[in-house]
């Protein structure tokens, strides 16, 4: 190795390589000062002359992960363990996290956001493997605000160009019901409330499927639907004992949160069930209401495909409406229903007789309270070219007069 530089103590240029026992040394021939020894490190000049090298300048930094990254990875791994995810998920989530943190848009975000980023990576991994986990769950585990989580998640999806499949409601039913404490006898659970888990899960799945077929699921938060469906299913398995239990009490006993929209979803589900019940021959004798229909949910679910077809008229169903009386339910439909069907069902909300079929539409279209907006462009609007002359008077209406200005500045104590 070529000797270079001068001796720091005497300034002589006579530097010699010598070996002291087995250790290589760079020695000044004039004064004997040892310049460097034991050249085990890198080629940085400071290190050769035994001066301190800052961490950011040494090669060590390139090999080790930064503390922030290490902490983040540990967070991700902990999250995976808490959620009891398979090993593969952990590796995938960690790799997403490493990619994300190095991305320029995430590199310098706040620590809070970096923590959420870890949660988002776990969330994405779960969804890509169709492992049902909701954002709410991750947020509560991270004590995070949902809006912040949402924004980090969306930018993660965009920046890393990840394609995330939609949440499977069927799987969500199973995992959500896992957290219900109704399947074993416990101190706070009255005996008649305890139910077999498999039965509840099976019936809830059918109920959720019914909800999705009748447009109650699209665009809505999934958890309230599952909660409402689980409630109805559980009630219907032993109606005599459970009809008196409200949704709120049910959730309390089961030890789960009651999401506010669940009441609305419950109402909507009951309305669908009542309409279906009106098509079942042996149920028409009973005047069913939203309490008593629960007793027959088992039957309704069993025949749901047939009942849905008859209880609701299709969108473009002029032919459907006319043919219905012919192919319809076993016993003749009640007069009102028959009349409604004969009239046919033009699209929109015209089909709203009490006993008759209504169109199968999302609730936002059925209960539409918005006025239909007529074409907003008036003829005068479309004639604008953008280059019209602008009159002075029109502009002056926007300017203050001198007295006004004086009064204003006095009143406002203008800064």
């Amino acid at each position, binding site marked *: 190795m070529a000797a270079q530089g001068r001796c720091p103590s005497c300034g002589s240029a006579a530097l010699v390589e010598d070996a002291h026992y087995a250790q290589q040394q760079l020695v000044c021939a004039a004064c004997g000062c040892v310049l460097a020894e034991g050249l085990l490190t890198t080629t940085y000049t400071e290190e050769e002359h035994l001066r301190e090298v800052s961490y950011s300048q040494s090669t060590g930094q390139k090999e080790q992960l930064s503390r922030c990254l290490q902490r983040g990875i540990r967070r991700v791994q902990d999250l995976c363990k808490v959620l009891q995810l398979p090993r593969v998920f952990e590796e995938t989530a960690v790799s997403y996290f490493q990619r994300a943190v190095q991305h320029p848009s995430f590199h310098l975000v706040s620590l809070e956001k970096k923590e959420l980023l870890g949660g988002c990576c776990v969330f994405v991994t779960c969804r890509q493997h*169709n492992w049902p986990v*909701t*954002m709410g769950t991750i947020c509560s585990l991270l004590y995070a605000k949902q809006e912040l989580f*949402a924004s980090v*998640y*969306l930018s993660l*999806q965009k920046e890393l160009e990840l*394609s*995330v*499949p*939609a*949440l*499977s*409601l*069927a799987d969500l039913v199973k995992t959500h019901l896992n957290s219900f404490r109704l399947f074993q006898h416990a101190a706070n659970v009255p005996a008649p409330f305890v139910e077999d888990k498999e039965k509840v899960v099976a019936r809830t799945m059918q109920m959720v*499927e019914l909800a*999705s*077929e009748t*447009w109650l*699921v*699209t*665009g*809505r938060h*999934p958890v309230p639907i599952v909660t409402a469906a689980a409630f109805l299913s559980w009630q219907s398995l032993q109606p005599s004992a459970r009809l008196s239990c409200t949704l709120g009490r049910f959730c309390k006993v089961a030890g789960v949160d009651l999401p506010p929209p669940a009441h609305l979803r419950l109402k909507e589900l009951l309305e669908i069930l009542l309409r279906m019940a009106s098509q079942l021959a042996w149920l028409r004798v009973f005047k069913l209401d939203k309490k008593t229909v629960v007793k027959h949910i088992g039957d309704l679910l069993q025949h749901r495909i047939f009942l849905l077809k008859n209880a609701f008229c*299709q*969108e*473009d*169903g002029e*032919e*459907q409406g006319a043919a219905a009386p012919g192919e319809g339910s076993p016993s003749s439909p009640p007069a009102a229903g028959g009349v409604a069907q004969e009239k046919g069902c033009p*699209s929109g909300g015209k089909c709203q007789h009490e006993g008759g079929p209504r169109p*199968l*539409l*999302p609730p*936002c*279209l059925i209960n539409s309270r918005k006025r239909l907006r007529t*074409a*907003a*462009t008036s003829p005068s*609007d*479309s004639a*604008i*070219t*953008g*280059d*019209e002359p*602008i009159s*002075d008077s*029109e*502009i*002056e209406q*926007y*300017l*203050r007069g001198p007295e*006004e*200005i004086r009064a*204003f*500045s006095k009143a406002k104590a*203008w*800064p």
Partner: protein
Amino acid sequence: SSFKDDVSTSPQLFAPMSPYDVELPIQTTEDVLFGSQLNQPKDLPTDFSSVDLSFLPDITQDNNEQNLSEDGHEMQKEPDGSIPRNEDSGIFVDESSLSYPRTTQPSPEASGVCPSLTPMTPMTPVTPASESSGIVPQLQNIVSTVNLACKLDLKNIALHARNAEYNPKRFAAVIMRIREPRTTALIFSSGKMVCTGAKSEEQSRLAARKYARVVQKLGFPAKFLDFKIQNMVGSCDVRFPIRLEGLVLTHQQFSSYEPELFPGLIYRMVKPRIVLLIFVSGKVVLTGAKERSEIYEAFENIYPILKGFKKAS
């Protein structure tokens, strides 16, 4: 089979009649390609003909054409072996769980009905170019910018103008409004201005000029340089409900549907580069356009895709 016959006798296949046809170059060229494929039926992918599709529900010819046109518009990538979902199978069918039983039967002849199927290789649209949606998106908001090219004293403006508000602690610009055209402007001390709320490009320009004139009358040597439309937002209604869960399954690369976050599906169209918000009610919002034609083109692209998710009676 009946499928090939119907399509090849369709007279309007190569006659562009849509007013927006100029903005849809993909459609015309692909029509030609598809036409040549039609004449040699043997060139169709064998996967298509050997598949047993009897498990699919009956659909009409009309639906079939619409479904195929949807494939054409997404030429870049096709999800492997996915079927345009009918609502009954909506959210519970995982793509990977579908399998095609391979039989030696030729294409099915279920009462002369053609199956709706996304083939393994992307096929081009069959819809005649004349069959446009008939719905015109309405422009709801235009955002434009202009450079007044002079430094402005915002406090002065706020004092002398009736229609101005200025709260420097909240935002570093004057917010000014005029009644006709009904718009709002953000005026910055650098002389740059943003004009929002107009319903057409011309209105936006007229409004921006009026704001510039106000600033001039207040004593500043305002000019009107580099007027540019930055964003256009349009909306319309397809008048039928849409199965968003199905749409996100078949158009995963472009769609983001998170009901936990937002009730609508966010569709990022590549050509033209427009973001669409699609709602279950059938209302569609289109944004991100620099020109009106991009909005119209984007809607004409999405309409056949949405029609594919309309509930078949």
